[in-house]
């Protein structure tokens, strides 16, 4: 029998990674609440809540709802590529991910320059175009996982394969489309750069304005918390929708997914026609602008500056992706092995905090990290991070670790506890079980999450501008600063370079998103 002190030590050792993750993820939020509440007067708070927020919330809601609707409306072609087989299907599938290569705010700049876009309707369109690949990714995955047995039953009932698919089975993908819509709305709600470019006073922009107008971080942070709290509602909807995805139960039962229906003749052109608006709005418009602007400025490009920016951008994205994955691992480990009790609650809380960090606008998170990593005294606790990229890496990874948690959680849900119990009975410890059993199932979603996080880090502006150390400039941050002074065209080559850096991770994401789901048969 083991001694009680050994048992306590083991408990502490097991809980330590989870506590560490919880602490890292919770710190920004706790910092905001404590410092913001302490520094802002009640009178000002009442003024903000009564006068400032209501009209901005109305604009923000319009933008978020509009973006979700636009994204859903544009997703028809992508969904077609998921369930039908037709000439050029793979090319179309990959192409529809292309808008992820560019920051949405740069798309806003292109639209402003090309169509004189301003106002909430244009903002909804731009955010919807930018988010359409998410519908493609989530909706496509759900449709591809539809069980073939359903189709066979419908055919036995005398219904055609294609018609049955569209009429009876596509509705089964609605939870996934709902998840994509919630995600789009969440991203639109906390977006500040695109709204600023298109002159829409959403709460995220209002928070920035109040912050800079008063030069008072706590006021902005409190408003940001209000934004984040409302964003959590969308986050909760997102989690609920993800939990109801149809493929989870079916995959666990070992039901084979449906094969793609072959479209013949002129029908093969239908998905292309359906995808045409997304291709035009999300690919052709920005590609034409970047090509034309780059051609005008290519001779004036300073290659040394561009190379330096590209190197720093790559370093930043790589570090942040690795750290985001590292933060997510203990949470996933705890969620995989702890079945009940307080630690289960802590694991769920840590997942919730990861989501909260994702819902926090990056500007608010930036303020929190500035507060958390003070350098008021050179020998103080923040001094070790002083002047390095680490605060920036930390903020990006805290913000995006939710992507790894979400992807990993979806993969974990595919497994009954029995799998892990069998391994335990055969003498495997938890770590080796986690790595050996779950790696094959966690690796693809983790790779997809890594590609997504890497792309997001490449494109980040708010945190990079706010937290970057002296002498540090990323491609995206430099272009944004030029865009603010009406000189986005001068930096088109930089944006082209950013898009090229993103091609490989994007193709990885597209390839993993398009793959057939592995089916396990527990029998």
């Amino acid at each position: 029998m083991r001694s009680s002190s050994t048992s306590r030590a083991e408990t502490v050792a097991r809980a330590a990674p989870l506590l560490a993750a919880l602490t890292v993820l919770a710190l920004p939020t706790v910092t905001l609440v404590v410092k913001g509440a302490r520094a802002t007067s009640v009178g000002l708070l009442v003024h903000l809540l009564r006068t400032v927020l209501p009209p901005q919330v109305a604009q923000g809601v319009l933008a978020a709802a509009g973006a979700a609707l636009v994204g859903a409306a544009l997703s028809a072609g992508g969904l077609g590529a998921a369930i039908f087989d037709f000439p050029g299907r793979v090319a179309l599938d990959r192409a529809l991910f292309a808008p992820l290569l560019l920051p949405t705010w740069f798309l806003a700049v292109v639209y402003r320059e090309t169509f004189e876009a301003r106002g909430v309707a244009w903002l909804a369109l731009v955010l919807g175009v930018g988010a359409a690949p998410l519908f493609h990714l989530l909706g496509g995955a759900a449709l591809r996982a539809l069980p073939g047995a359903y189709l066979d039953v419908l055919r036995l009932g005398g219904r055609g394969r294609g018609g049955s698919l569209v009429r009876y089975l596509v509705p089964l993908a609605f939870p996934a489309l709902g998840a994509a819509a919630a995600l789009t709305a969440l991203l639109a709600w906390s977006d500040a750069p695109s709204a600023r470019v298109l002159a829409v006073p959403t709460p995220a922009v209002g928070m920035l304005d109040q912050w800079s107008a008063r030069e008072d971080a706590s006021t902005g942070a409190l408003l940001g918390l209000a934004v984040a709290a409302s964003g959590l509602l969308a986050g909760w909807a997102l989690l609920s929708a993800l939990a109801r995805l149809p493929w989870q139960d079916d995959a666990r039962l070992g039901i084979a997914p449906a094969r793609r229906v072959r479209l013949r003749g002129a029908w093969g052109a239908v998905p292309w026609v359906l995808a045409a608006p997304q291709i035009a709005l999300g690919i052709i418009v920005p590609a034409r602008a970047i090509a034309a602007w780059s051609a005008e400025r290519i001779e004036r490009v300073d290659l040394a500056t561009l190379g330096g920016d590209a190197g720093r951008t790559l370093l930043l994205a790589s570090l942040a992706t690795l750290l985001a994955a590292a933060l997510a691992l203990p949470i996933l480990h705890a969620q995989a092995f702890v079945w009940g009790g307080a630690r289960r609650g802590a694991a769920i809380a840590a997942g919730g905090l990861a989501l909260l960090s994702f819902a926090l606008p990056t500007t608010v998170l930036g303020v929190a990290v500035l507060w958390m990593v003070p350098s008021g005294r050179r020998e103080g606790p923040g001094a070790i991070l002083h002047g390095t990229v680490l605060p920036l890496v930390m903020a990006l990874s805290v913000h995006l670790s939710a992507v790894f948690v979400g992807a990993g959680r979806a993969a974990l849900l595919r497994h009954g506890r029995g799998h892990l119990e069998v391994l335990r009975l055969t003498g495997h410890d938890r770590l080796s079980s986690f790595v050996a059993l779950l790696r094959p199932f966690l690796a693809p979603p983790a790779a997809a999450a890594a590609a997504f996080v890497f792309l997001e880090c490449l494109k980040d502006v708010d945190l990079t501008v706010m937290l970057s150390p002296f002498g540090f400039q990323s491609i995206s941050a430099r272009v944004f600063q030029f865009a603010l002074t009406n000189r986005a065209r001068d930096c088109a080559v930089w944006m082209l370079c950013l898009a090229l850096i993103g091609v490989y991770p994007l193709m990885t994401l597209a390839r993993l998103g398009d793959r057939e789901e592995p089916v396990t048969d527990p029998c």
Partner: protein
Amino acid sequence: MSSVRKRTVLIVAGVALLIVVSFVVVPRRGAGGRELRVLTDRTESHLAPFFTAFEQATGIAVKAVYLDKGLIARLESRPTEADLVITKDADLLEIARTKGLLQPLSSAKVRAAVPETFREPSGAYFSDAYRARAIFYSRERVKPGELSTYEALADPKWKGRVCIRSGYHDYNLSLFGQMLAAFGPDRTRAFLEGLKANLARTPGGDDRGQARAIFEKKCDVAIVNSYYMGIMLSSAEQRPWGEATAVFFPDQNDGGSFILRSGLALTQATASAEAATQLLEYLVQPEIQDRLANLTFAYPVAGRGPLSEINQGLGVGQPEVDHGVFKVHEVPLAQIAGNRDAVVRMLDALQFDQPR
């Protein structure tokens, strides 16, 4: 050791290595202090050439962070990070001074070069240049004689003809803060109400975007900084916007036009005060001031040469303006900074930036 554990150790070691690399790639300041760190919200292309020239002349490297917003919030959060703050809007330095983030500069060269009105009394900061918050108007659709004061833009005759960027932008906060100090709250509120009622579109975009809107006939007048005329005329792409508009200096028969001052200061926590002072003295040398003025089209406080040809042409049709030299309404920066909260609340109450 099992292969699983080996892999885990390798992954952890890899992450640790990358973290160490990040320290190396962006090294911390050396103990020698032969590097200056500048926190600024000014445009990189305007400042970087002078930093390079300073480094070549003195061997002291200058590293900068170019921020868009939150300059003082960052300095307040990490006060030891920077040696110098350089801002497009000296109001911010007054806020920094009241928060104890700056230290007085004791430089005889700066005192000699910069007129007293552009130096903070205790020496906490000074301005190196200024520009008017002017009225740009359509050469085609507006006669200069139709314009007079800022407040006249609230007259109903301008309904649907005025453009302006966000009311919360530093430039407008400074303008409205100066109006509040000069005219009092009632007149300022009435002006803001009238201005909002006359707007042709929702406030937004940047200053050049307002000139562009005049060029595109979306509005006839706009509140824009004077130096943008020179910047637009120097750019092939923006030249038509500049050519379609002209600059009017308001209130020349009253108190004068309100100005925005760029500012420079030493941080309280700098460990390189001597080198930082060297950079400040370098930037107020007459030849550097003239170069800066030619590059930015601002009005230098310590320049020797004549104004640029473009600036000499500003205020054409205004007899009170002599070759671009205009009457300035001087409002102490302490008053402007102190008015920020009141101005923001007025804008909030009017929902100034909300769609019309």
